[in-house]
């Protein structure tokens, strides 16, 4: 699975993209956030307050209870500010 990070989430974790194999027990977006937060360092900082994050699974906006176990691409970013 590909993980993508944008804006300050990218800056805090220190990369824009990475590949991971989902650990057993990670089923939803919320589970994945908890897993990434547990890595510590910049991840703990980026995922400290999930309320500040938005998530897309396979390029669709989703909520934290959405499944990720069959996703190809999960992206984490702040609320959008285009236009």
């Amino acid at each position, binding site marked *: 699975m590909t993980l*993508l990070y*944008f*804006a*300050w989430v990218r800056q805090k974790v220190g990369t824009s993209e990475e590949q991971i194999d989902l650990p057993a027990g990670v089923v939803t977006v919320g589970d994945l956030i908890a897993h990434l937060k547990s890595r510590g360092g910049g991840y703990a900082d980026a995922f400290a307050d999930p309320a500040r994050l938005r998530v*897309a699974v396979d*390029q*669709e*906006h989703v909520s934290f209870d959405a499944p990720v176990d069959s996703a190809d691409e999960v*992206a984490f*970013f*702040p*609320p*959008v*500010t*285009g*236009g």
Partner: protein
Amino acid sequence: MNAVRIQREDFDIGAELDVLAGGRNDVGAVVTFTGHVRGDANLTALTLEHYPGMTEREIASHVHEAEQRWPLTGVTIIHRIGRLEPGARIVLVATASSHRQAAFAAAEFLMDYLKTRAPFWKEEERGGSKSWVAAKDTDEDAVQRWK
């Protein structure tokens, strides 16, 4: 005809409107919205990043929804990315229809969705420091009226 483009370069509004409405006689109204970088409080520049792939999908789905709601003959959306200084154009939304009501409403609808759903992020430079722009509740309120 619809066009959605994400690009670094500036755009020529006149040329875009010629493409949107030129050569056809069923267009009675074209509404354009152009967003510019507002140079308030010693802003030096904005840098825009986006999520390639998702941005285009998200905008295309809102154009499709606008077409379900209003009788449109065409839509052009151009959003710039990269570093932009005060006064620069950022975004163009142009809607064409036989009648003005549909063109006005669709342009507002598309801008409201662009601001709150399309995956773009702005980082501000003021003097030597950089900070990410926070999303505004007023933009989220604006999009709720279309629900």
